[in-house]
C-alpha cells in the first residue's frame, strides 16, 4: 500500500486507528503495539509475500541477536562476534537483495550472484535494515532504552510480547517504506510515557493536517511535474537535441518533483505517526532554502545523514585522525585522512544507498567533493573575513546563488538514466540547440514550476507551520529561512479545516492517475 492510495486512507487507516485505541483502552500497551505490528505487516503484504518473509526473518534475526548481546557479559568474547554477525547479516542481505552490485554495475557475469538480478528489490529494505542496524548498535553499546524496551523476559508470553514491541518499532507502517530511520531512544520514551495510548484529539487534528499537506505535495505538485521530467530525461538518455529552455525546465522540474515527492511523504509519515500519539524525527526541513551543501544535508533526508555519519563518517574520521596523529603525518595528508577521505566515502555510500547505478556513484562524488570543499572554504580565514564585513542578507543571497546551480546539476545527474545521459542533458542546458523540436507544451510545466518554487522559497514548511504542537523530534537544530511574515502558526479551526479539505479534494482529483513515491524505489 502507499499512503496516497484511497484504500489506505479511507479504509486501512481508520480501521487500524479504531482498533488501536479500542485495544489499548481494554487491553493495554502491549496489545496496542501488537496491533501496530500486525497492521504494519498487513500494510506491507501488497508489496509481495517474499518481502514480508524477508522482513520477518530480519526482525527475528536482529531481535534474537539483540537479546543475546543485551544479556551477555561484556567480557564474553562471543558478544562482539554475535554483534558483528548480526550487522553482517543486515548489510549482506541489503547488498544481496537491493544492490545487486555485481550484476548491475558489472553486467550479468557475476557467477553465483547472477541469480539475484531476478529478484525484485524488497520495498523499504534499506530503511528497515538501517533501522535495525542502529538498534543492534544501541544494544551492543548498552543504550539504556534497550533494556527498558525489551522488559522482563521471564516467560514465552513476555518474549512474544517483546518481539511484537520490537516489530512495531521497526516496521510501524508510517516509516516502514521510506523512513524516517528512528532510534530507539526516540521511540521508547514515548511508548513508556503515560500519555501514549491516550486518545488526544489534537494529535488527530495535527496528523490529519500533515496528511492533507503531504498528499497535496505528492499528488498535485510532484506528480504533475513528473511527465515533463520523464520526457526531458528520456530524451537526454538517447542523446536527443533538446531546446535549452526545455532542458532547464526538465532539470528544474525534477528538482521540484523530488522535493515535493519526498517532502510529501515525510509530512504524511509524521502525520500518520502522530495520529497514533507518536512523534517521529524530522527527515525534511526546507532543504532548498539551505545556504550550502553542509546546511542542505542537515535538512534533506536528515535521519539517513545521521545514521551514515554515526556508522561511517565518524569512525572513519576518528580512525584517520588517530592514524595521522600516531604517525605524525604532515598537515595536508593528515587533513586528507581525517576529512576528505571519510567525506568522500560517506557521500559515495549515500549515493550508492539509492541504488547500484553509475549515476548515483557520480552523484556521490559530486556531493562528496562539494561538501569537503565547502567545509574548507567556510573554515578558511579568507571566507570568515569576507563574510564578516558583508551584509547578512547579501551573504545569504550569495551563498544560495552559489549553492543552487551545483545542486540542480547534481540532482539532474541523480535522475538521469545513465551518466552519458546526465552529461548530455548538461550539454543541452548550456548548449545552443534552439532549433530542436519542442518536446512538450511549455505552458503547464512552467505554471507548475512557478507554483512549486514559490512554495519552496516563500512558504513555511509544515513543521514550521505546526510548530505550536511540537509535531516532530528535531533531528538537527535548523534555522527557519524564508519570509518571516509568511511563517504563520497553524491552529485547528474551521478555516484551517476548510483549507485542508481543499488540499485533500485537489489530491483526490488527481489520485486516480498517480504513480508511487520516488523514494520507494531506493
Amino acid at each position, binding site marked *: 500500500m502507499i499512503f496516497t492510495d484511497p484504500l489506505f486512507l479511507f479504509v486501512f487507516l481508520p480501521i487500524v486507528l479504531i482498533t488501536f485505541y479500542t485495544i489499548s483502552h481494554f487491553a493495554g500497551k502491549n496489545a496496542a503495539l501488537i496491533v501496530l505490528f500486525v497492521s504494519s505487516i498487513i500494510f506491507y503484504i501488497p508489496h509481495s509475500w517474499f518481502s514480508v518473509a524477508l522482513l520477518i526473518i530480519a526482525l527475528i534475526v536482529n531481535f534474537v541477536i539483540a537479546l543475546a548481546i543485551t544479556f551477555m557479559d561484556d567480557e564474553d568474547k562471543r558478544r562482539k562476534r554475535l554483534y558483528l554477525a548480526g550487522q553482517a547479516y543486515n548489510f549482506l542481505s541489503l547488498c544481496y537483495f537491493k544492490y545487486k552490485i555485481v550484476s548491475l554495475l558489472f553486467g550479468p557475469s557475476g557467477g553465483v550472484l547472477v541469480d539475484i538480478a531476478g529478484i525484485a528489490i524488497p520495498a523499504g529494505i534499506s530503511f528497515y535494515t538501517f533501522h535495525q542496524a542502529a538498534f543492534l548498535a544501541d544494544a551492543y553499546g548498552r543504550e539504556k532504552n534497550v533494556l527498558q524496551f525489551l522488559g522482563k523476559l521471564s516467560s514465552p508470553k513476555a518474549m512474544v510480547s517483546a518481539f511484537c514491541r520490537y516489530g512495531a518499532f521497526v516496521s510501524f507502517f508510517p516509516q516502514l517504506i521510506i523512513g524516517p530511520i528512528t532510534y530507539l531512544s526516540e521511540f521508547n520514551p514515548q511508548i513508556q510515557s503515560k500519555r501514549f495510548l491516550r486518545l488526544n484529539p489534537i494529535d488527530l487534528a495535527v496528523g*490529519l493536517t500533515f496528511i492533507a499537506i503531504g498528499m497535496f505535495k505528492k499528488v498535485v505538485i510532484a506528480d504533475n511535474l513528473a511527465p515533463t521530467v520523464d520526457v526531458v530525461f528520456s530524451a537526454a538518455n538517447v542523446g536527443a537535441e533538446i531546446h535549452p529552455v526545455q532542458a532547464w525546465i526538465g532539470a528544474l522540474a525534477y528538482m521540484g518533483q523530488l522535493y515535493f515527492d519526498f517532502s510529501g511523504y515525510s509530512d504524511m509519515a509524521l502525520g500518520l505517526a502522530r495520529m497514533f500519539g507518536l512523534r517521529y524525527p524530522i527527515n525534511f526541513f526546507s532543504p532548498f532554502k539551505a545556504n550550502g551543501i553542509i546546511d542542505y544535508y542537515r535538512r534533506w533526508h536528515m535521519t539517513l545523514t545521521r545514521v551514515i555519519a554515526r556508522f561511517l563518517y565518524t569512525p572513519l574520521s576518528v580512525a584517520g585522525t588517530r592514524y595521522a596523529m600516531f604517525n605524525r603525518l604532515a598537515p595536508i595528508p593528515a587533513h586528507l585522512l581525517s576529512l576528505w577521505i571519510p567525506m568522500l566515502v560517506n557521500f559515495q555510500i549515500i549515493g550508492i544507498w539509492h541504488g547500484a547505478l553509475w549515476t548515483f556513484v557520480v552523484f556521490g562524488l559530486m556531493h562528496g567533493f562539494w561538501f569537503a570543499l565547502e567545509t574548507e572554504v567556510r573554515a578558511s580565514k579568507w571566507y570568515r573575513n569576507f563574510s564578516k564585513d558583508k551584509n547578512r542578507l547579501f551573504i545569504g543571497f550569495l551563498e544560495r546563488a552559489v549553492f543552487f546551480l551545483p545542486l540542480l546539476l547534481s540532482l539532474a545527474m541523480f535522475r538521469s538514466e545513465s551518466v552519458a545521459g546526465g552529461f548530455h542533458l548538461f550539454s543541452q542546458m548550456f548548449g545552443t540547440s534552439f*532549433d530542436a523540436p519542442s518536446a512538450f507544451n511549455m505552458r503547464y510545466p512552467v505554471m507548475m514550476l512557478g507554483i512549486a518554487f514559490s512554495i519552496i522559497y516563500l512558504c513555511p514548511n509544515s513543521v514550521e507551520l505546526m510548530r505550536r504542537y511540537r509535531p516532530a523530534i528535531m533531528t538537527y537544530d535548523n534555522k527557519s529561512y524564508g519570509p518571516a511574515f509568511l511563517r504563520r502558526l497553524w491552529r485547528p479551526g474551521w478555516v*484551517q*479545516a476548510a483549507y485542508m479539505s481543499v488540499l485533500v479534494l485537489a489530491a483526490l482529483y488527481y489520485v486516480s492517475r498517480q504513480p508511487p513515491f520516488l523514494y520507494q524505489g531506493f
Partner: protein
Amino acid sequence: MTKPDNASPVAPSASRNARRQSLKSIRWKAARPMLFAAVLISVLYLALAALVIAVDPHNVYRWGAEPRIEAGDTPRDLVIDWIDVAAKDPSYNTFLVGSSITAMYTPEYMREILGPDTNAANLSYGGPRPIDRDLVLDRLVDNPAVKRVILTYDWTYMEGADVANRGFPTFLYDDDITNDLRMVNPPTIRRTFDILRGKTTYSNPDDAGYDAYIENMYARFQSPPELSRIKRMVERNRTGITQSSGKTCDSFTALNEQLIPDLQKLSARGAQVDILFPIVSYAFYYVRRNDISPTLLDEQMVARRCLVNAVADLPNVSIFALDNDPTVAGDLANYREVGHIYNPAILRRFMMAIKNGSDRVTRENIAEYEEEIRTAVKDYDPNRDYTDLRLVVPDL
C-alpha cells in the same frame, strides 16, 4: 486551635481532574473542525466509491449497469476508461487497437470499407505502451464475439515489456480489486450519475474539438518555418541514420512476451488479425531518432522483421504496410506531423489494403520491403517534389 485541613489531600486531585476534564473538552472543541472535515470527506468518498462500484460505469465487474458505447461513436483518448465497455459488448465484432495515428478512424468509416457485417469499435488512444496495450489485447482475447482485430505495430513495441503509459488506468484492468477505489474521480462519478439518471450509453463529446485539433496540427506542420525546421533536422541527423543497433529478435520483450502470445490465441480462436505498420514519413526516422533512439531505423526494421517471421505460420494473421511507397511516406504534404498521417486518401488506402489483402508484408517479401525502406530513408531528400508522382488510391 486551627481546624485540621482534611480537604487538602483531596482538593488538588479533584481540581486536577477538573482541569484535565476541561483541557480535554477544550482539545475536543479545538479539533472538532478538522475531525468533522476528515469524517465528512471519508464518508462521502466511501459512499461515492460504493455507488461507483455498484453501478460499475466502466463495466469492469460482473455486476452493474453494463453501459454501452453509442453506436458509431469514437471515444478516442477517453477510451482508456472505456475499454471494457467496448470489449465486453457482444455486438462488436471488430476492434481497432492503435494509437493517435489511428484515432481518426470512425466505426462508420470502417464499416463502409470493411463491409456491412462489420460492427467496429476504435480502441485507439494516445501514447500506448506495452503494458497497457497488452491489457487491452487480453480483453479482446477473452471476448468470444471478436471476429477481427486490427492493430498497429509501432515503435513503442521496441520498449520493454514493463513500460506503461503513465495516464493509463491500469488499476481498472488488473486483477487487484483493492486498488479499484482509485477509479473514484469526477468523470467517473459524473458517468455514474448519468447512468443512474437512465443514460446508459457512452458518447464522446469531443468530435468537433478533435477535428479542429487535427486541422490546426496540419496547418502548423505545413507552415514554411516548420517544414524548414524539419528539413534542417533531417540534414543534421543524416550521419549514422543507417547505423546498426545490434538488436536481435530477443531484444524485443514486448513483442515476444506480450504481442505474439496474444496473436497466437486470437489466431487459434479463428479471429482475423490485421497488423498495420504505421505509415510514418521517412523524415520520422531522422527527427525521432533524436528522442526515441539513435538507431531507430534499424531497430524498427529488425522489430518488423521479427514480427513478420514470428506470425508467418499463424493462420488468419496478416501484416500490411504502405510506407514503401515514396508518394506516401516521402511526401510531407501527407502528414500533420512526421509520424502522423493526415491525407484522407491514404487513410482510406490503408483500410482498403485490409479489405483487399493488398500491400501485405510476408516472410517472402520482408527482405525486399526492408531494403526498400532502408534505401528510401537513407536517400531521403526532404526537398524533393512529389507532384509528378500520382498517389494510388484504389476504389471501393
